[in-house]
C-alpha cells in the first residue's frame, strides 16, 4: 500500500509540470496582452510595465522564474488586481469556494444517497418514480437557470434569504448558492445509488443475508451499502473537484468572492500570473482528489487492495 501511494504521488509530478508548461505558453500565445487598453499606452510606459513584470525577458527565462517562484509558493503579483499578489488572492478565494463546494457535496451525498436507496428499495413504486422524475429534472435543468429561479422566489419575492454576497458569512448567505450547486449532484447521485443498489440487492450475498432472516434495514446498512457505494465514490472525486472549482457560474450569480471568479477575470484580462496561479492550484487539487479516491477505493473494495 505504501509503495502504491508513493508511486502514485511521483507519477503526479510530471503531470503537473506538463500542465504548468501548457498553461504558461498557451496564455501567452493568446492574442492581446495584459497591457492592451482602449487607449494605447505610451511606448515608454508599456516598456516600464513589461520590465516591472519581467515580460521583457526571453520566454524560457520567464518560465524558469515562474517555476522557481512556485517552488517557494510565490505565484507572483496580479496584473489586474494590482494591490494583491496571486498567492493572497488564492488564499482569500479558496476557503470560500471550498466551503461552498464541500457543503454542496455533503448535502448532495446525504440527500442523494438516501433518496437513491429509498428508490431502490421501493423499486417501481410511486416513490421510486417520483424520486427518479425529480432526479431527471434536476439533471436536465442547468444551475444557471435554477439559481436565478431560487433568487427570484426566495430573495426577491419572499425576502427570506439574501440574493447575493457572503454578508458576514452566516448560513443564511450560503443556503441558496449551496442548494444551486447541490441540486444537480443530488439528482445524479440518487440515480447512481439507485442503479447500483438494485444490482447489489440482487446479488448472492444479499440473498444469503435474507435467507438468514436479517431485518431489511440491517441488510442495506451493514451489507449492501458499502459495495453499492463504489460507483458513487469513483464519481465523488472528480465531482468534488468539479464542484469546488467549477462553481464559476454560481459564484457570479450570487456575487460570492470565490476562486472561480478569478479564473474568468484572469483569462479575460490576460492576467497571466492570476490565470497561471488558479490553473496550477486547480491542477494540484484535481490530482489530489483523484488520488484520494484511489485510496478510498482500495479501502472499500478488497479486490483493489490485493491487486
Amino acid at each position, binding site marked *: 500500500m505504501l509503495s502504491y501511494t508513493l508511486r502514485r504521488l511521483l507519477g503526479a509530478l510530471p503531470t503537473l509540470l506538463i500542465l504548468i508548461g501548457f498553461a504558461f505558453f498557451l496564455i501567452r500565445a*493568446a492574442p492581446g496582452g495584459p497591457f*492592451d*487598453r482602449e*487607449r494605447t499606452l*505610451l511606448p515608454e510606459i508599456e516598456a516600464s510595465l513589461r520590465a*516591472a513584470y519581467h515580460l521583457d525577458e526571453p520566454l524560457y527565462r520567464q518560465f524558469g522564474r515562474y517555476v522557481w517562484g512556485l517552488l517557494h509558493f510565490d505565484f507572483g503579483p496580479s496584473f489586474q*488586481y494590482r494591490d494583491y499578489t496571486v498567492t493572497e488572492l488564492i488564499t482569500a478565494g479558496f476557503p470560500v469556494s471550498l466551503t461552498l463546494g464541500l457543503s454542496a457535496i455533503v448535502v448532495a451525498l446525504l440527500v442523494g444517497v438516501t433518496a437513491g436507496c429509498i428508490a431502490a428499495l421501493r423499486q417501481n413504486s410511486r416513490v421510486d418514480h417520483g424520486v427518479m422524475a425529480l432526479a431527471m429534472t434536476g439533471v436536465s435543468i442547468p444551475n444557471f437557470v435554477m439559481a436565478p429561479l431560487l433568487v427570484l422566489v426566495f430573495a426577491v*419575492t419572499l425576502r427570506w434569504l*439574501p440574493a447575493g454576497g457572503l454578508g458576514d458569512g452566516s448560513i443564511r448567505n450560503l443556503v441558496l448558492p449551496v442548494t444551486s450547486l447541490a441540486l444537480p449532484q443530488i439528482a445524479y447521485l440518487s440515480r447512481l445509488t439507485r442503479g447500483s443498489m438494485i444490482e447489489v440487492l440482487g446479488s448472492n450475498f444479499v440473498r444469503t443475508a435474507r435467507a438468514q432472516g436479517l431485518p431489511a434495514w440491517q441488510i442495506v446498512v451493514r451489507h449492501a451499502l458499502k459495495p453499492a457505494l463504489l460507483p458513487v465514490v469513483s464519481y465523488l472525486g472528480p465531482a468534488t473537484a468539479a464542484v469546488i472549482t467549477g462553481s464559476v457560474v454560481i459564484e457570479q450569480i450570487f*456575487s460570492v468572492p470565490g476562486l472561480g471568479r478569478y479564473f474568468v477575470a484572469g483569462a479575460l484580462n490576460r492576467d497571466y500570473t492570476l490565470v497561471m496561479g488558479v490553473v496550477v492550484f486547480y491542477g494540484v487539487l484535481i490530482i489530489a482528489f483523484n488520488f484520494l479516491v484511489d485510496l478510498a477505493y482500495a479501502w472499500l473494495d478488497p479486490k483493489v487492495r490485493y491487486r
Partner: protein
Amino acid sequence: MSKLYGVGVLAALAAAALAGCGGGPAAGATSGRAAQIGGASGSELAERQVLHVGNEAELQTLDPHRAEDTSSFNVLLDLYEGLLAEAPNGDLIPGVATDWTVSEDGKTYVFNLRREARWSNGDPVTAHDFVYSLRRGVDPKTLSVYSYILSPLLHADDITAGKLPPEELGVRALDDHTLEIELANPTPYFLGLMAHSMAYPVHRASLEAHGDQWTRPGNLVGNGAFKLDDWVVHSHVKVVRNPYYWDNANTKLEEVWFYPTDDLNAEFQRYRALELDMTGIVPAAQIGFIRENYADQLVIAPYLGSYYYGFNVTRPPFKDNPKLRRALSLAVNRDVITKQILNLGQLSSYGFVPPIPGYTQQQMPEAGWTQEQREAEAKRLYAEAGYGPSNPLRTQIMYNTQEDHRRIAVAIASMWKQVLGVEAEILNQEWKVFLDTRNKKVDTQVYRQGWIGDYNDPFTYLEMLRSTAGQNDTGYSNPEYDRLIAASQSERDPRARMELLQEAERVMLADMPILPLYTYVRARLVQPWVGGYQSNIMDRHRHKYMYVLKH
C-alpha cells in the same frame, strides 16, 4: 404527457426568471412605502445612515495614481480629495484648495490650501503632499497608465519618458499652504484635471511605511470624506466617515458599502431584494421590464461618451476614399439604433465630440436633413466612389463580443445592404483580441469604438485623431487637422481655442474617418429613500452629499 407539462412549466418559470418577470412584489413593496419616505416632513433622515451601492466590476486598485477603471474611481472619490472637487451636479468646486490665481500668460497657477484640511490619521494636508504626489504620478516607476492626465505640467512628458528626474516637474510648495504649478502650455481645462484621481494627494509617510501594502484597510490614509474600513476582493469595499475631514460636519452617511458584480442581472436582483440602494448600471436586456415596474427609480442621464465606428483609412477600400466613407455614414439611420435598438435615451450623433459646455457641437452638414435625403445623397456618393449593384462594396464590421454591439452591427449591415447594396460581413472578437487587431490596422476595415471623456473638454476626444496619437486606430492623418489641434494647445484665449477645436472637428468630419453613432447615457436604479443624488455628465458622485431618508 403530465411530465412534459411539468417540464414546460419549469421552462416557462426559468424564462420568466431570466426575463425578470413577476416582479410585482418588489415593485409593490417599494411603491407602497413611498408615502412614508422621509417621514411626515418628507426630509426626515433614517436612523442608520448606511448606503449600499452596486459598483460594476471588482476594482483594480485603491492607488489613485494607478487606477484606470470606473469601479476604482468611484471608491477613490470618497477616499480622496484633490485641489478641486465635484459638486453633486458635476461642477468644479474648491476641494483642498480654497482659491487660486492664474498668471497673465496662463501658465502658472498658485493655489491656496485649506489650513483645516486633514488626512484620515489627523496629519495636516500640506502643499508638500501635493508636490510629492504629483511627482509620483508622472514618475515612470509608479507604472501609472493615466500619467498623460498630468502631461500639461511643465516637464511631465520628459519625466514619464525617463528623460528627466521627477524633481524637475513644474510644481513647488511656496509654503505649507501655498502650491505653485507651472504648465508647459496654457491649458484651459487644467483645473478639471486637478479633480482627477491622478492629481489626488497620497500620504507619503504611510506609503513609505507600508510599501506594496499601503492601500490595505488599516494602512490606507486618505484625505476624503470617508476612510477605508474593509476590502474583501470580489465581495465588498466598506468606507466609513472620516472624522478628520475638513467638512465632516456636513457628511451625513456613516458608512458606504460598494459591491462588485460581474453579472448585471445579479446586481439587479440584489437591488430588487433591497440589498442595494443604488445599482451601478442596469441590464440592457431587461430595460422593458424595468421601465414597466421601476420607472420611478430609473435614473437616466447623458454621459460624456461617444459611440462610433472607425474606418481603417490606411488600406483599401477606405484609403483615400472619403466619398465611400461619407456614403456609408449617411446610409445609417441613427434614430433606429438609439430609439428602437437601445431605447435608453441615447442621443443620435452626427459629430464626434459629445455636448460639452463652451464648445459648439459640430455635426456633419447633412445632420439636419431627413433620412430620405441622406439616403439619396448616400447613393449618389456611393456611385461616385465607383460602386453599384454590379460592383457592390464587400466589407467587414468588427466589434468586441457583447450583445448590444452585435445588435447594432447587424442593424448597420442591413441598412447598408438595403440602401446601397453593400455586402457587409460582421465579425466579433473577444475584447483583448479585438484591441490587438484594431491597433494593428491590418485586418480591420470598419470597427466599433467608444470613448468616455477623461475630463470635460473637447480635447479629450479630438486629440485621439491626431496622426501621432496612439489611440488613432483609423490611421487618419491630415496635416491641417494636426495643425489646428497643435494651435489650440498654445492658444491662450479660451474662445479662440474652442474655435480652433471646432474648426478641427469640421475638417475631420469632412474627411469622415469615423462614423459617429450616438452619445452615451448612464442609467441606474436609485431607491426612493436615497437623497442628495444628482446625475452629472462625468458620472462622478461623492457620497458626502448623499443621505438616507427614513423609510
